[in-house]
């Protein structure tokens, strides 16, 4: 594989893969927050 193809692939798949992974994690975190909401009693612990 030539350097040009490699570089462009890394930019597209690398940047895209990173942001997609982090976006997926942010969705899951939002879901977790909804499934396990914060209760005021936790503030006292």
């Amino acid at each position, binding site marked *: 594989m030539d*350097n040009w193809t490699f570089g462009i692939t890394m930019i597209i798949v690398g940047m895209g893969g990173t942001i997609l*992974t982090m976006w997926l994690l942010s969705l899951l*975190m939002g879901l977790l927050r909804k499934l396990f*909401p914060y209760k005021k009693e936790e503030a006292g612990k």
Partner: protein
Amino acid sequence: MLDAIGNGLYGLIAGFTNLHWSNPIMIGVGGLLLYLAIKKDIEPLLLLPIGFGCILVNVPLAGLMEEEGFLRTIYDAGIATELFPLFIFIGIGAMTDFGPLLENPRIFLLGAAGQFGIFLTLALALALGFSKLDAVAIGVIGACDGPTAIYVSSKYAPHLLSAVSVAAYSYMSLVPIIQPPIMRFLTTEEERKINMGAVKRSVSKTTKILFPLVVTVIGGLIAPKGLPLFGTIMLGNLMRESGVVSRLTKASENEIANIVTLLLGISIGATMDGRNFLTPQTLMVLCLGFIAICLDTVCGVMFGKLLKVITGGKVNPLIGAAGISAYPMAARVAQREGQKYNPKNFLLMHAMGANTGGQVGSAMAAAVMLSVLKGMGII
């Protein structure tokens, strides 16, 4: 008899006669690192052992990096095996509170945008003629994350390890100088004044405990080649949030992190032998590393501006610059810049969220990169 005396005396001056021209320069570089650590308080925990290691290895005939030399033993035990950066990651996970990030999960995206410099610099390094794996090691300086840079370069471009690690740690400490001009250039005064309000404490303990597990499993499935990187951070964080292994948590963030930092620093310094270090390639690596950090900041701030538009002006783009892994310096820079233009603005906790997102993001970006390389059959 005279011969024996002559030989004996030669033994005492052999160090001087074997001095390569590059050794005194590197002893000076080691001295400069010590000066920065001791007098300027720049990353002293790392620059001091790195500087001293650099001086040690540039004294000829000591053989410290030869077979059975003590620095070689440390290097082989912890750097060649990649254990040291992973131990450091456990400590980082144990020290980090991901609460501000979990308060506002969309900030995760800033932690991704802050890593784009890695890939852009990788392409730049390729354009300048570096090999593929060398370009990967250089690009990862943009993670602004010492352990990640060491992990990747020691594995795939060990001949660049010293330049990459010195660049990563030096630029990380220079974040307060590098970032503000870029942040001011890319934002308007109105944007810098945006008040994001207070961060509420609204994340349950269950969520905080499940967070490291979810990141480990989902991240591991997407980018298995980098699982050691974020898996160790998440192990440390799980110990912290579970609250049931406080002895292990304290050991990870104190004793283990301290011992490994010392050994890591001295063995990185030991790779700075002048004969290998003083090359045009090293200078190029240092320049590209600087560009990587600048590009991270540019991409982070630009993504912050995008989030500002999407949220109808609720996000201050300055916190985008905190989406890198330099924790907590980058968050403090965002806070300071925000307060300059609006003294009532407290961006710190929001920026901390982006900054911890950057810590996950840097490990994740490196993991994605390694998995893409594996997929392409390059590693």
